[in-house]
């Protein structure tokens, strides 16, 4: 195993790994400041912030030979015997010089800059900059121009790291951004008439180490230090990007991608990024409604679960529809409850919203056309409980006009998903219970209309298109009057205490081979369930699993 020496500390790396000085130092617990380098982009070594001393240790004699000048750590590969010195006087002086140079013509308008609080320039200035400003330039107004529908550029705050330019070339592949002019007059710009309009454009704001690129959707809405980040999973499509939900007092202000090399690397699409507005939509269902003789009245949550349970048991048969927006834990609780009410209950996978096809970007990032996060997970749970998984069209085709018993539709769709003609078909059920985010033709005719939780209010796990399961806790509390599906089904199943996702996950792991990896805690980047999917196939247990899963 190659050994790299960082500040006298030996770090062992894998021989296959291709790491640079910054990455190796991070393993040794040393942070080398950097602006232009980003693990997801190519190396340009232009900001000079990561300058370090480097050398080579002769493996036979043990003698160390240093290179006489400073080199950028981002561009220096680490191999066996490489030596990095990151805290010498020369390095410290170089960092202070870079900081001073960057701040020469920086507006220093931190109080009104949205990046303040999470800005590299600010942080590095405190850590590595000089205590006093030697330049005698007064603060000035930062010029501002729009780059597209989503991003604003504050020209003078820029440190010319060109991360955004490289992102548009390498990951989005659309090349809208460029560097205009030369030397001290360099600026980020677009070609006139060709705005920044790709579907990954929001990422350049996250990439920007300073406040030069502002997200128009988030600009001036909230200072970053008021918000709390919660690790979550995007519910926009079946890619299931790892995200952070930034929230203050149960109000979401922005979503940001969270690093997950197995799923989304460092990115997320704009559709997902701005796809949280429905959470705070005033049109959301916020009270459980009971309809008697065509008149809706507000029901009371305290007595409602018992009432629902009683009516379901009296209905003589149950069909339960589980939407692909539910977590696997919720699906399990719901399916088990359905079978407890009626041993022959049909459990059906709800309507799967489809887009116009997958969109793949040149860097490999893909927006899936399946616009729901958890079709695979819910289908696997249904398959595990019922043996086979019927889907939504099967229910509509099976002439439900002759249906008897109760129909429970757990929805949670964030936009229109059912038309009046489909709703008309399902009215035939004598008892119709609909759980959804927004009023729909189906909820209009339901006997009970229950408010559902949005993705940020859920706690549980989603299984993405690639059989990767990611778990998350709730980021915000649901609005008053909304009970999450998990809590309702937990209560209906008469389990003790509060809903705990971990308990349900352990149950899943014990009962289904597909979920067997869940017996341990789920790491932040998720668990790959693919191996467990192959196992029962090899055993010949379910031959057509690939078709459904």
């Amino acid at each position, binding site marked *: 195993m190659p050994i790299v020496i960082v500040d006298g500390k030996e770090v062992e790396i894998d021989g296959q790994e291709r790491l640079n000085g910054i990455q190796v130092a991070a393993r040794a617990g040393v942070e080398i400041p950097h602006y232009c380098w980003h693990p997801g982009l190519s190396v340009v070594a232009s900001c000079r912030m990561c300058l370090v001393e480097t050398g080579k240790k002769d493996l036979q004699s043990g003698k160390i030979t240093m290179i006489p000048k400073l080199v950028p750590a981002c561009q220096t590969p680490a191999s066996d015997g490489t030596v990095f010195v990151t805290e010498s006087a020369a390095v410290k002086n170089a960092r202070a010089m870079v900081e001073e140079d960057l701040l020469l013509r920086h507006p220093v*308008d931190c*109080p*009104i800059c949205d990046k303040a609080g999470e800005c590299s320039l600010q942080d590095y200035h405190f850590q590595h900059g000089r205590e006093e400003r030697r330049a005698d330039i*007064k*603060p000035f*107004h930062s010029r501002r121009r729009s780059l597209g529908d989503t991003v604003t550029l504050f020209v003078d705050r820029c440190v010319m790291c060109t991360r955004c330019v490289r992102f548009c070339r390498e990951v989005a592949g659309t090349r809208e951004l460029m560097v205009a002019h030369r030397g001290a007059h360099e600026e980020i710009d677009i070609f006139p008439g060709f705005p920044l309009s790709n579907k990954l454009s929001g990422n350049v704001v996250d990439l920007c180490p300073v406040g030069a690129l502002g997200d128009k959707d988030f600009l*001036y809405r909230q200072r970053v230090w*008021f918000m709390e980040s919660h690790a979550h999973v995007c519910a926009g499509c079946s890619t299931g990007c790892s995200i952070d939900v930034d929230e203050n007092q149960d109000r979401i202000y922005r979503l940001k991608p969270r690093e997950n090399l197995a799923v989304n690397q460092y990115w997320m699409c704009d559709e997902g990024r701005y796809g949280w507005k429905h959470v705070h939509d005033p049109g959301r269902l916020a009270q459980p409604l009971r309809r008697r003789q065509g008149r809706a009245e507000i029901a009371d949550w305290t007595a409602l679960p018992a009432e629902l349970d009683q009516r379901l048991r009296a209905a003589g048969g149950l069909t339960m529809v589980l939407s692909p927006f539910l977590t696997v834990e919720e699906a399990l609780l719901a399916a088990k409850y359905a079978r407890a009410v009626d041993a022959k209950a049909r459990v059906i996978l709800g309507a799967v919203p489809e887009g116009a096809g997958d969109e793949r970007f040149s860097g490999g990032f893909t927006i899936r056309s399946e616009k729901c996060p958890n079709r695979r997970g819910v289908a696997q749970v249904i398959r595990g409980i019922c043996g086979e998984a019927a889907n939504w069209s099967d229910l509509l085709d099976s002439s439900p006009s002759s249906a008897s018993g109760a129909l429970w539709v757990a929805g949670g769709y964030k936009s229109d998903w059912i038309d009046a003609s489909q709703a008309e078909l399902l009215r035939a059920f004598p008892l119709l219970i609909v759980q959804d985010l927004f009023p729909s033709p189906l909820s209009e005719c339901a006997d009970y209309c229950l408010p559902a939780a949005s993705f940020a209010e859920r706690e549980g796990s989603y299984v993405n298109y690639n059989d990767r399961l990611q778990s998350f806790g709730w980021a915000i509390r649901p609005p008053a009057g909304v009970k999450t599906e998990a809590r309702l089904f937990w209560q209906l199943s008469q389990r003790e205490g509060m809903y705990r996702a971990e308990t349900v996950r352990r149950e899943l792991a014990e009962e289904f081979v597909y979920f067997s990896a869940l017996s341990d805690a789920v790491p932040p980047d998720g668990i790959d369930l693919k191996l467990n999917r192959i196992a029962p196939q090899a055993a010949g247990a379910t031959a057509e699993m690939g078709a459904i899963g």
Partner: protein
Amino acid sequence: MRPDDPKIRWVDEPKLGITGRMYLPMFAQGLTTTFKHLKRSLAGDVLTVSYPDQEPRIDAPLIYRGVHRLNRDEQGRVKCVACFLCATACPAHCIDIVGVESPWPDREKYPQSFTIDELRCIYCGMCEEACPVDAIELTSLYNLTGRSREEMIFDKEKLLSVFDATKDTEPMRSAPTEGTNA
């Protein structure tokens, strides 16, 4: 500031001497003060103010911490840039700001709404200290009354009107800022 910061000088509590432990000298010292004031009052020099018949005199209005005001700039616009630093510093969480893009070309951001709950405020002056543009200041107005709680939540207009009412007696504590937008 961390406890191990070299700039911090840690001082030990001085040990009490024999006189300190006896209490009696201190006792005498306190009584001396009491009798001094008693003598002064008996001579007719009463310090107590008969409020509200008589208005108290505030010796240093510039450091008194009374009702807040929002200062105006040279053009009469609100000076605040909606940076939220006062709201961040506020230990009572009584300041609520909504910042939006400003309608003026020379300014980036301004408060669309700026409210202070004067009942919740503890008048500590941290907001004044935190403000990078000296937009929020505490005046020497002390007799703050209202008929309802809602009335005591001061909005931007009300805070600006406090400035208009007090600007002549209490000038702004800083010179107008030049060419900066922050």
